[in-house]
């Protein structure tokens, strides 16, 4: 077990810098998830922690050791790859015991550790099989077992669930969570799926364009996104954005409607009001005129796609069943205390009063 500190880490391929100085503190025993769209640098950062990519600048510290110049085998980490990377010519037991064999651990001890891990992951009956005889979910478990037997100070996961089907993914999310609780190890996990991030993480790092955009607990990030990118990336369906203007402590939408929020007098000019779909409700007395485009019942809730009078596409999510025709003119209301405000130019969050 160890804490991980990432200090002003940069990565450049020639003149092309892909990570622009990232700072992250990963507390000992925490489950930290790096989330972001493809190409945001999250996998590169993870590979730098693993020692599979050179660090162009800055420091990666595992425990209390700067590991920049320490090779992967000496970093005391384990990693689970997206494509599992199981050794195809070895059995499940040999795959899981490989690192221990390399470390010259006595045979009997390897066997005990492998058996324990296999039992924990429900792999006992597959120990003598080759990976190609296993299903995707089982291969995933073997990859995890290979990491567990090492008892490393840090676990690294590179999109480990993205090759699984939706049902399996949901199940593995729960298992990973309980595995983390049981082992209590530091885990760093990369995904592009914000649901995985929200459901599993103690700490989320939202990344985009080579920057860590926001770091925090899942619900803190959900409730107080620091900029437009984080606001749009976290949460599904995504947050609605309405163009507005701020003046004299008041905010007006482009159609002139006054928004029920107060801001500092110093805030002037173009702003963007953000409202999550579940905070936008159908209400005959609502301030927002909308025209329904599509109604999508999911069973537990109803998703409504609509267009505002100002021509902006918005989404509403309601727990009620709605039977509105496409093209119907309705009114919607927002929960005033759940609104978000962003500067249109800097895209940063503006605190309301």
């Amino acid at each position, binding site marked *: 077990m160890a804490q991980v500190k990432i200090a002003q880490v940069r990565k450049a391929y020639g003149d092309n810098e892909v990570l622009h100085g990232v700072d992250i503190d990963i507390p000992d025993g925490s489950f930290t998830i790096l989330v972001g769209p493809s190409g945001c640098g999250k996998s590169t950062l993870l590979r730098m922690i*693993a020692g*599979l990519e050179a660090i162009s600048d800055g420091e990666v510290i595992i425990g209390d050791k700067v590991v920049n110049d320490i*090779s*992967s*085998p000496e970093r005391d980490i384990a990693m689970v*790859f997206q494509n599992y990377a199981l*050794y195809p010519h070895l059995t499940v037991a040999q795959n899981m015991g490989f690192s221990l064999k390399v470390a010259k651990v006595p045979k009997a001890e390897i066997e005990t550790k492998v058996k324990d891990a296999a039992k924990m992951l429900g792999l006992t009956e597959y120990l003598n099989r080759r990976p190609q005889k296993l299903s995707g979910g089982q291969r995933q478990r073997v990859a995890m077992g290979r990491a567990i037997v090492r008892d490393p100070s840090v676990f690294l996961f590179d999109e480990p669930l993205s090759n699984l089907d939706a049902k399996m993914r949901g199940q593995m999310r729960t298992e990973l969570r309980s595995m983390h609780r049981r082992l209590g190890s530091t885990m760093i996990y990369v995904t592009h799926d914000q649901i995985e991030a929200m459901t599993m993480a103690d700490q989320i790092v939202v990344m985009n364009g080579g920057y860590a955009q926001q770091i925090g607990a899942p619900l803190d990030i959900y409730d107080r996104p620091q900029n437009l990118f984080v606001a749009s990336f976290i949460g599904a369906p995504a947050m609605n954005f309405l163009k507005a203007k701020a003046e004299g402590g008041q905010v007006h939408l482009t159609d002139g409607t006054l928004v029920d929020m107060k801001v500092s007098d110093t805030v002037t000019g173009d702003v963007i009001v953000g409202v999550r779909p579940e905070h936008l409700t159908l209400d005959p007395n609502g301030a927002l005129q909308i025209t329904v485009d599509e109604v999508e019942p999911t069973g537990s809730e109803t998703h409504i796609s609509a267009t505002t009078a100002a021509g902006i596409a918005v989404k509403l999510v309601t727990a009620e069943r709605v039977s509105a025709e496409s093209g119907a003119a309705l009114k919607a209301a927002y929960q005033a205390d759940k609104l978000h405000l962003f500067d249109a130019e800097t895209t940063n969050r503006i605190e309301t009063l």
Partner: protein
Amino acid sequence: MSDTTRPGSNRPILHFGRYTLMWALAVLALAPLLWMFLSSLRPTQEMFAHASSFSWHTIWPETFTFQNYTALLETGFPRAIGNSLFIAVVTMVVGVFVNAAAAFAFATFDFRFRGPLFLLVLLTAMMPFEAIVLPLYMLVNALGMIDSYSALIVPELANGFVILMFRQFFAAIPRELYEAGRIDGASWLRIFLTIALPVSWPVILTGSIMIFITQFEAFFWPLVAAPSAELTVAQVEIAKNISLEGANWGQLFSSMSIVCVVAALPFLVFQRFYIRNVASSGIK
């Protein structure tokens, strides 16, 4: 597959035509070999007796004899075949390892001049041997290896084409497999030996056979580089049957028959693995 689904089976003429053509091609390819083998069983005086007018006995000997084979025992041929086998097997075993190691470096490491170096490797595979035989002779001579087994083995260890084959295979293996090995604490040498090599056995087989056959049928270089009688290889020994005074056709045929069988043996043995590999690659 049942007969009814085979294309052409419901059109007997087409079916017949196709098989006739295939048989004709097969006979065309095999007839000289068969004739060589049958002639090796002819007594010397019968060798050309039926050559001028074509008859059944042009192909099938009138009398069968093993004298051409037993006579070989008195010549340098047994020793030569032993030499050839020794050279071919040693080159094969060491060569596969050397070429695989070079290819692994080309496939996995990023080092200066990797591109130009690999181009050089490819050039060695494309260069006709005759073009380099003189400088190679001078080099091997300068190293003091002329007229030794080393002269016949060392220059043949590195094989540009085998390196290319291994490199393509190693490069196609997902990089994560090597990275997983790194994370698991293994050194690169260990990854090469315990991960890369074991998964690449189809290439090891192909490369082995290629090196073996190349060395077993080598003629020109051994003729130049190892003139001593005790280092004579099979191909050179066979050629000794033809001289200015005349040719010993019987022993020429018998020794060639033996060499053909020995050269084909590893291929026939490994072929089963080949087929199995191709068949299982579809399942994944």
